[in-house]
């Protein structure tokens, strides 16, 4: 009983779809090799057809639970489906191409146990570049392990995500209670960027804990391996618009964003900048098809069309009046003042 109190059940969720065999093996073995005692591993196979299924079935372990959605699902829905099978007090998503150090869960759990206000904890990462084979840590090693208050964390999360690579969800452990309270990765029904709304939702429930040790390894794919293409661009633009619309009407998240210094306009500008970069830099050999291009264009127009407020019409009027009052002839000044008094 005592060990259960100190070591609450943790669910590690590994969603799999057509992963390379060696990467998948490395991932599953690293999850099974954790030195944390109270562990449940859920592998959700999204109807792979490249032999991943056989690899998954070859592992037998009482901690392992293999599930399959009733049909092939889009990515975020698949992750949501897998998370709904979790029974643990904490849950963690692990990409099927990433792998963790053996003491990952032990360290994370001992850190989060001392921070009851944290709704999630995320570690530093080691990045592995598939193309060159080089490695480096993802975040500055000087940043110490610390509890980041929610407002500060939100500022950071939005900043990161604006660079497109936040990676906070890699190796992060999330309190299941908070995860479900903000409807998890399916929040805002995005297609690809579920982690962005999830992190903002979690920060409305509690703080974030950063662990400075690089405990998880994250693979960076090159463009040649077919990870970024036209469809992805279209989808990410779609998501940006959805996220903007939903933040606007979601009161707690909106307040959090404003408190952290990110007004909606600023986030939108950031997104526009990002979308421009994303589209101009990334058209590769498998560029967007005609339909996708149409979708990208319509998304971009949506993103660019800021609301026309009364203010836009009033601003020139006020500017003119201001100029009159400052520089104008005294009679102009009088007229302007009279007008203002009216």
């Amino acid at each position, binding site marked *: 009983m005592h060990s259960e109190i100190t070591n609450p059940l943790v669910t590690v969720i590994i969603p799999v779809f057509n992963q390379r065999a060696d990467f998948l093996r490395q991932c599953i073995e690293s999850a099974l090799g954790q030195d944390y005692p109270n562990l449940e591993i859920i592998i959700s196979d999204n109807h792979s057809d490249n032999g991943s299924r056989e690899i998954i079935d070859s592992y037998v372990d009482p901690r392992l639970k293999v599930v399959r959605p009733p049909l092939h699902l*889009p990515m975020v829905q698949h992750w949501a489906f897998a998370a709904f099978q979790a029974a643990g007090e904490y849950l963690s998503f692990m990409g099927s191409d990433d792998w963790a150090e053996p003491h990952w869960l032990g360290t994370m759990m001992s850190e989060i146990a001392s921070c009851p206000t944290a709704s999630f904890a995320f570690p530093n990462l080691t990045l592995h570049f598939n193309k060159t084979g080089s490695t480096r840590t993802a975040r500055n090693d000087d940043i110490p392990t610390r509890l980041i208050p929610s407002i500060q964390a939100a500022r950071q999360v939005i900043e990161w995500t604006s660079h497109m690579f936040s990676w906070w969800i890699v190796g992060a452990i999330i309190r299941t209670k908070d995860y479900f309270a903000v409807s998890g990765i399916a929040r805002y029904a995005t297609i690809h960027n579920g982690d962005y709304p999830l992190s903002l939702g979690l920060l409305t429930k509690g703080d974030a804990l950063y662990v400075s040790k690089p405990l998880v390894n994250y693979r960076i794919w090159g463009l040649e391996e077919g990870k970024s293409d036209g469809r992805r661009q279209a989808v990410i633009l779609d998501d940006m618009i959805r996220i903007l*619309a939903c933040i606007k009407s979601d009161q707690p998240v909106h307040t959090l964003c404003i408190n952290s210094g990110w007004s909606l306009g600023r986030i939108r500008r950031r997104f526009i900048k990002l979308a421009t970069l994303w589209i101009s830099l990334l058209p590769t050999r498998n560029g967007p098809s005609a339909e996708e291009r149409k979708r990208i264009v319509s998304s971009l127009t949506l993103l660019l069309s800021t609301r026309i407020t009364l203010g836009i019409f009033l601003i020139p009027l006020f500017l003119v009046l201001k100029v009159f009052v400052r520089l104008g002839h005294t009679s102009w000044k009088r007229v302007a003042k009279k007008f203002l008094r009216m």
Partner: protein
Amino acid sequence: MRPLISLVIPVFNQKEEYFRRCMDSVLAQAHPRLEIIVSDNHSTNGCTGFLSGLSDPRLRLIKPPCHLQLIQHFAYAGFQARGQFVSFLPSDDWLEPNWLDVMLQVLERHPDAAFAYCDLRKHEVASGQISRYRGDAFPSRHYTDAEAMRIFGKFICRDTSAYMTGALIRSDAYFKCGGFHDAGVRYAGDACMGLGLLKYGGVVYESQALANYTQWTAKQGKTDAQYSAIACQDIAKVISWAENDVELRAIARKAHFSFPKSRIRLSVFFLLAYIKNVIDDASNTRVHDDFQETLKILSRGWLPKWVTSIFRSDLMISLMSFLRDRVGGKIKSYFL
């Protein structure tokens, strides 16, 4: 072989008589391949005991890892479904014995429909009145996504559409649209789902009353000022979510359905609800806050803050309570 059907019943602290009625009607369905998923959201009133007393091979009892909010609970229960078709049944409503057979036939006749829904028999708890929910408003036929968009757009601007009771949904469309997802709403997950499903096909309507819907009144604590404020807010959120979805925009354009118009329609409903609530319960500041927020969302930020905050001001509240004392009854009978 006949397809597997998942019937999902999320339950939380339901009165036993209602819950028993619901379960009996479900277990009486004659379809051989039925999976009845009952998700118990950590009830505290004896539902759990009643459930453990049931024994049926078709029954699958599940329990979320912790107590969930309404939408999240529906989403949790829905994602456990394994069947080819999914249906949700709130635990106070119940089905007619031939519901499943008729609905299955309807969906088999229209393979390109994402879901089918039927007319309901409405039971008012307070007065005991029974009436048809939609009557003969719509003929039973297949509606394309554009036609359905118009109908659903109107539905979501009323406070309850109740299409979900007795609706049979193709599970591929259900899972692809993300099911009961959360566009930041608190209760109106069914509106989000209904619109989301339209992306994957049309809708079939069956005008027979095949399910029963329980209509609660304020006395049972189901509809109060708070609730209708939240409902308004939710629907404003649903509209702004749908408006920013590229695929839904395309359908809306095809249907000549305009989101600004639906926002205006909602505003009328909102104002009526606001007047009613302010007259009923003027001192409740939370209602004012909620409505202020709704107004902001409805106007998409056009209204400056000082206009919306008027609704919170002491003057407005005292004016409203004065109006309630003097002409409240008249206003109420005139508007509502």
